[in-house]
């Protein structure tokens, strides 16, 4: 049974049907924090920031079979940014592609969940990312292959704003436009933070949308922490009848949902004190309870 479309994010499984996307995003954030706690540090701010995007991708947009991650009909999700693995593992656990108890092994010896995502290690991890700027080019090959097989699946490639510094990203953008890859949906997480500082201060990629447009792409730019906006953007990208690749540029907030982490400067690789993990989880839980009480938009 493939995942059903719909804003409810409904899907069969132990985590229940008709679970809201807000609930999915909350659970993804929780899982990421629990994994972060295992290592005591990590790319947790990125995971919290991109959780809403992953919730919409995995529980609204994409088709897949949790028990058969290599199913030929699945939409392919490529994680170009290998260090976002903690975020994707959380989505894969929530999607029941990975068992939840394995999160305790995150980053450990012989774990299937290494700190940087690799194809040979993890069910549902389509590519070995991490050498930044590779994903979009690999996605092109997936798209060309699917077209040659007349397979209607989509290829999603999640890349970061930092990866916009890489020339290979733009080689691939030019190539995707040239090949009119209407089965390609790139997602750019613009969280304005890379290793050495704020992304546009490192290398100014703005105005970003017009750049992709000039390369022949259909462009959506949304608040990447606004679930209804994301749903609408993913729907338009998937349903577009034009023969061109699509990009959803998502402006996200690093560490979204945990204000004391959001406030930390230089949060590319967050160090979190031992007692702060419980505090962060507690903040998430309380905010979720409030949202449910208020009847959730």
């Amino acid at each position, binding site marked *: 049974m493939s995942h059903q479309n719909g804003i409810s994010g409904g899907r069969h499984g132990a985590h229940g049907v008709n679970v809201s996307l807000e609930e999915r995003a909350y659970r993804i954030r929780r899982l990421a924090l629990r994994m972060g706690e295992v290592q005591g540090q990590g790319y947790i701010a990125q995971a919290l920031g991109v959780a809403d995007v992953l919730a919409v991708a995995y529980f609204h947009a994409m088709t897949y079979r949790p028990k058969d991650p290599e199913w030929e009909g699945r939409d392919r999700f490529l994680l170009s940014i290998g260090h976002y693995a903690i975020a994707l593992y959380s989505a894969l656990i929530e999607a029941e592609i990975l068992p939840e108890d394995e999160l305790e092994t995150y980053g450990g010896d012989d774990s299937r969940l290494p700190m940087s995502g690799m194809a*040979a290690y993890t069910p549902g991890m389509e*590519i*070995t990312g991490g050498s930044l700027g590779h994903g*979009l*080019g*690999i996605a092109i090959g*997936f798209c060309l*292959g699917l077209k040659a097989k007349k397979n209607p699946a989509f290829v999603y490639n999640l890349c970061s704003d930092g990866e916009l510094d890489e020339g290979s990203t733009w*080689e691939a953008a030019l190539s995707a436009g040239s090949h009119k890859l209407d089965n390609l949906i790139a997602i750019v997480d613009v969280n304005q933070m890379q290793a050495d500082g704020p992304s546009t201060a490192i290398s100014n990629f703005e105005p970003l949308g017009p750049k992709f447009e000039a390369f022949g792409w259909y462009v959506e730019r949304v608040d990447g922490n606004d679930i209804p906006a994301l749903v609408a953007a993913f729907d338009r990208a998937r349903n577009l009848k034009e023969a061109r690749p699509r990009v959803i540029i998502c402006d996200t907030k690093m560490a979204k949902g945990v204000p004391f982490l959001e406030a930390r400067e230089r949060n590319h690789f967050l160090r979190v004190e031992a007692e702060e993990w419980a505090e962060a989880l507690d903040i998430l839980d309380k905010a979720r309870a409030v949202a449910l009480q208020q009847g959730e938009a």
Partner: protein
Amino acid sequence: MSRLSKYTPRKVQLGPNGERLKTSAMIASIAGVDQRTAPAPFGHALVELAKSRPEIVGMTADLSKYTDLFVFAKAYPERFYQMGMAEGVLMSAAAGMAREGFTPFVTTYAVFAARRAYDFICMAIAEENLDVKICCALPGLTTGYGPSHQATEDIAIFRGLPNMTIIDPCDALEIEQATHAIAAYKGPVYMRLLRGNVPLVLDEYGYTFELGKAKVVRDGRDVLVISSGLMTMRALEAAKALSADNVDVAVLHVPTIKPLDTETILREAGKGGRLVVVAENHTVVGGLGEAVAGTLLRAGVAPKFRQIGLPDEFLDAGALPTLHDRYGISTGAVIRQIKGWL
């Protein structure tokens, strides 16, 4: 050395018959004047293969013409992918195609694969052990265009890459056979290509390519030349010439550089009494010569050992015969070096 050390006025240099020597262009053949040749052996072999292998696709970065992939592109336009002059996306997209069940034959020049696209080959193709065949023209010193096009260190670069099989074929016959053999093998391969009208040599010796196998093409009691690629044809020519001087030269052809056929190399080099010369169209750093040296040393086999190969330098531009002679890989230079070591 000054930045402009080569930038002083020169007079026109003429060849031995008073002819004007020209830079060997990309489309130039390495064939000698009287050598038998076959046209575009890689392209024709791939077309033949594609008849029974629908998953084979061709991909290039604006070099189908100069890598003989155009033959395939003409025969199977719907299975040919022009990726533009972008070697990174070429290799990445090939990896994606392989993930979808295709077997991409990817072509560019050896310099661009080994230098520019290395990270993409490493992480997208080799690390995932994907079934991509990277077939590259202008290996070693096979163009007179200078360092921008001379891939003198391609083998050294790819030897360090886990999972990568490396093939350095000698002639048209071997290119055809090796194309079929690497298609039958599942996994990433880097193959050096000779293109255009490629010399035909090994058919005279009843030779058949086998992946991973070194073969004695000619036996001899005085010298054992261990060679790959076009240096095997040079070694065979040198052996013929040296036999007139009563020097008996054996030639062990090693077209698979990795994984290396250490068993055959140790057996032949261990026979004793022969000068062992490794000859390669590659820098003496990190290629077949050092691979053989390490194999011998680790096994405690210690014959008199010499290397014929390109110097550890950025090489000159110019006419290919001049350059081959200058850097010691022409037939004449091979003969001179061997004689000097005996």
